[in-house]
Every structure is written in C-alpha cells, then in structure tokens.
C-alpha cells in the first residue's frame, strides 16, 4: 500500500506531527526578529479609542475585567492598552469581575506592573482606592449584572477593598464612587473579557450605559453583531484589535504627526490626539508579525491538501 502512493496521495496525507513541528518553527523564529507591520485600524477599534478618549479626566468608569492568564495572549495586551489610556487621561476605574474568581488578582498584578512603568517614566502612580477600586468577583454573573441594571449600589453591596491605612473598607466609601447609584451614573462601561460575559452584559445593560468591549478574537463575530445593532459603542477584537489600539495610541485619529501627514483618518470624529513618544506598543507589536507566518502556514497547508486531491483525482482517471 505505502509503496504505490501517488505524489497526490502523499500531499494529501502528510503526517500530523510534521505539520505540528513546522508550526512550532513558524511561530517561534519570528519572535526573535520583531518588525513593524503596516496596518489600517478597523472602524470598531477607532470607535473604542474615540470613546475611551472622550471620557473626561476625573470621571469614573466601570471596568469589567473578566480574563485570566489563559487568554493572556490577547486580553493582557488589551487590558494594558486600555489602562494606559485611562491612567494617562486621569480617569478612575471601578474594576469588577463576573468571569473568573482569579480575574481580580490578575488585573491587579497587571496594574502593578503598569505602575512600575509609570514611576520609571516619572508619572504619578495610579493609586488603589484613589484612582481605582477592585470590587472583586461575583460568582453569579447573570444575576449580578442584572442587578446592576436596577442599582449598582445594591449589587456591589457589602463588597470591600483595601483603603490605605484602614484595611478592608466598603467600596462605596471610596472617593471615586461618591454619589454613584445607577449604572447610568458612569460615563462608560468597559468589558475586557476572554469569555462570554460580554453577551451577559449586553443582554442586561444595553441602552442603560454606553458599553465598550475588548474581546478575544473568537468573540469578535458575536461582538460585531452587537456593535452593528448599536448595542455597544465600540470594540477591539483579538490581536488585530490590540494592534489597532496600540497604533491609535501612537498616531491618534485625524491627528497630523510631526511631518504633518495624518496617519489615521475618520470622518466620524474630529481630531483625537495620541500619546506619541510614550510607551504605546506591547504584545500587539510583539505578536502581530509572527501571526502572519502562522496564518500563512495554514493557508499553505490547505492549498497543498487541495493540490494533492486534484493530482490524485487526475491520476485516478488515467
């Protein structure tokens, strides 16, 4: 049997293991040679950026951080970019999680790392309790978000966070939650998720507060659905969305750079500045080029398979 295999059959029946090894090579080597890939941000990413930039300094946004290290590849980068924007614009954040018991810890670790970066850059630290409170995890996501629709206060009731010098204190004693009862008292609700919690949020809260998402690539299509029916104001999806965001933070929107030419145009918005010169790129810049090789390999494999099929077919006819 093995003997009289036509070339077509061979092409059609490459052993899996071979494909796997090639994939490992394709996803490892480029990591050592990062390059900047040209890119055009998606409209949804621009909308997300514009909405983040439109929150007034000193305001407080709701931030649902529903990701853990298992989607670190996409979510961590998105979280970092979003937080960088909030931090630089002096926007406060109330961080809660309905996705995973571990999510609050992961988010805090990420913020700690960002703070190290800020202090190194001689920027003020983003302080717990004064700039952000971590409300913690809610085991029954659906019902909690449902409760937020009627009253944030009642669904966050009894949740505590560490106040400097006072230990665990009711989160509503924090200055950034003063006089905030309803979800409508927040200018924006940002959901950074690696799971389905985004749907739950839309189902329960759409129309009550502007909602923006940063989701993993796999959630992209569903999220696009909400985006199109204007249930959410903007979103970044997966690595592409992240790369867009990092680019936008560099270039801004309708915003001429030093040499005077506008990199990102959008007729929807007036000029929105970026943060040129600051640390904007992270995971996106690091992973996106490599992704090209991986996808390229996938396409190649599909082509080889089909070529093989045609060869052996025509071979069959002879």
């Amino acid at each position, binding site marked *: 049997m093995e003997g009289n295999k036509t070339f077509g059959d061979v092409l059609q029946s490459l052993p899996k293991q071979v494909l796997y090894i090639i994939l490992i090579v394709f996803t490892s080597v480029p990591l050592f040679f990062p390059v900047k890939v040209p890119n055009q941000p998606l409209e949804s990413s621009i909308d997300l950026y514009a909405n983040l930039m439109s929150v007034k300094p000193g305001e407080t946004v709701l931030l649902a951080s529903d990701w853990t290290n298992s989607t670190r590849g996409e979510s961590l980068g998105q979280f970092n970019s979003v937080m960088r924007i909030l931090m630089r614009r002096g926007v406060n954040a109330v961080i809660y999680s309905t996705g995973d018991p571990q999510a609050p810890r992961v988010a805090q670790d990420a913020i700690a790392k960002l703070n190290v970066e800020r202090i190194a850059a001689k920027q003020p630290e983003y302080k717990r309790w004064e700039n952000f409170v971590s409300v913690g995890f809610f085991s029954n996501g659906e019902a909690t978000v449902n409760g937020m629709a009627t009253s944030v*206060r009642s669904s966050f009731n009894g949740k505590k966070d560490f106040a400097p010098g006072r230990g665990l204190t009711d989160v509503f004693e924090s200055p950034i939650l003063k006089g905030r009862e309803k979800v409508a008292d927040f200018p924006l609700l940002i959901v950074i998720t690696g799971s389905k919690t985004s749907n739950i949020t839309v189902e329960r809260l759409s129309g009550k507060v502007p909602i923006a998402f940063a989701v993993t690539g796999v959630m992209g299509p569903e999220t696009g659905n909400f985006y199109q029916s204007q249930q959410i104001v903007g979103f970044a999806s997966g690595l592409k969305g992240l790369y867009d965001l990092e680019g936008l933070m560099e270039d801004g929107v309708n915003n001429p750079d030093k040499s005077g030419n506008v990199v990102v145009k959008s007729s929807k918005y007036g000029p929105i500045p970026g943060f040129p010169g600051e640390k904007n790129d992270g995971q996106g810049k690091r992973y996106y080029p490599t992704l090209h090789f991986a996808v390229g390999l996938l396409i190649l494999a599909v082509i080889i398979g089909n070529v093989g099929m045609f060869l052996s077919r025509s071979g069959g006819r002879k």
Partner: protein
Amino acid sequence: MLIADAVGQQYRETGWFGVLFTAILVTFLLVNIQRAKMGKNLYIRRIAGLNAIDEAIGRATEMGRPVLMVPGLSDNVNAIAVQAINIFAYVSRLAARFANPILLCCYNAAVFTLAQEVIRDVYQEEGLLDRYDPDSVRFISDRQFAFAAGVSGLILREQTAATFFLGEFYAEALIFAETANSIGAIQVASSTEATQTPFFIAACDYVLIGDEFYAASAYLTRQPVLVGSLVGQDWSKLLVIALILVGTIFNTITVQGKTTQSWDDKEGAYKTIPERQNDPKQSFIQQLATPFLPKMEVDRPKDPDAEATTK
C-alpha cells in the same frame, strides 16, 4: 404620581411592545403544545445529524468500545445542558439495550447531579439497573481546559468508538473533535455557540447547526409536548420574519422623508437640527424596539431607615 402607579417603567412609551411580543411567543408555544397533546400529529423535517446517532451507537456495539457523551460546558444547569441530557438519555437507552458501556463527562457539578439522576432513571425504566455503573457519569473538572485535558485523555485511553459533543462548547470544541478523530471515532457534534460551529464542521462527521440542537429531542422521542413546542418555535420564527419584513418596509418609506429634528438620548428630548433625511431610528419599528423615554422625575416621601438600608 398616578402614572407611576398606572404604568411601570418598562411600559412607558412603546416599552409595552417587548412584553407583548414575548407574550405572543409564549402563547404560540403553549397553544401548539396543547394542539399536539390533543393528538394532532405534526410533521417534522428530516435532520441528518440525528439519524447518525443510531448508526454511531450500532458501530460502538460492534466494536465493543464505549460511547462518550459531553453535555457541553454550561456554567450552571440550564436549558442547553438539560436538552443535551435529554438527548443523552435517548443515547444511553439504546446503549443500555445493547449492553454497551457509556461515559458521560460533566463540566458542572449541578449538571453532573442531574445527569447522574436522569441516566439512572433510564436504566431503571429499561429494567437494566444492574448494568448501570454510577462511575460512568463523571464530573471531570469545572475548569475549561482542565476539562479539555481530562476528556481528551479519556478519549485516547478508552478508545471510544462514538463520541457525542452536544451543548454549549467554546474553544475546547476542536480539541475534543480532533482527538476523537485521531482514534477514528464517529463524532456527532453541535454547539449552541455559532462561533464554534465552523470548527465542528471542519472536524466532525455529523454536525447539528444552531437550532437543530433544540429540535433534536422532539425529533428523536416524538413526545407530543416537544413536537408541539417545536411547531410553536416555527410560528415564532415566522413572526420574527414577518416583523423584520414589515419593519423593512416602514424603514424604507421613513427614510425617504426629511426631518429637522433628532432625538438626544442624554437629554431625553428632541433637538432641532438642519434638514436631512429621516433617521431610520425614527421609523415605527425602531421606536417599538427602542422606546424614546423622556426624562421623568417622581418625588416620593423619604424612607426613615434610608441610612440603615443603603449601608
């Protein structure tokens, strides 16, 4: 003040429509369930994926290898999990008759409890309780990828001949499908997550797309209640289609006209703007879906224990 008593928040403006629409759907379902109960026999079209179930079990019996079932990764026991277990009840019934070992892997403890209970019942009804091994219905893990690792380990070690992945599946879907494929097991799969369906299509032998999953139990068992409700679902779908078509017509007509007003959600009022085409948002159907709620303040006496209650 009276208005607050008369109309609730959700009924203001066109808010009532949502409630009414849901009510109509519910009525459709109940009416048809009633019709079916009264013995009216109703037609169901053929669903390829479901005919495969018997074949798969038959094959497993020939090979004397176990049948593996996964009722999805629902976070809690919900309709999707229940539906999956309903289908698996049918599968296990066949397996029980052929004395074929089964393996039902649960992601959630509550689902596990229900499955344990239902499957035992199945064996009892068949009078084969002696063949029932409580360990054949297992809780693996309620951590997505621990579950994935555990199940694929089981598939490889038990060399399952037929595998059923029905329910809520996410990223791990492909892990199961490819692992099962690598040992040449027949796979019948379905995910209520449309985003996972393409991966199942790529890797599995038979795939139930979207709604076919909910049709399954009716199709397999032909219980009047289920069949009736299935017909009710079809009526509901037709209603949705009708609403979409009507809406399209209204919309198309609306935008032909011009306006100098636009609704401001923040203000909760109309504001004047330079003339332009009507916004589709102002069309009849859109207003039914998204009521424009003007601001409304109602003052009430303060609660004496307010302080205590808001703490």
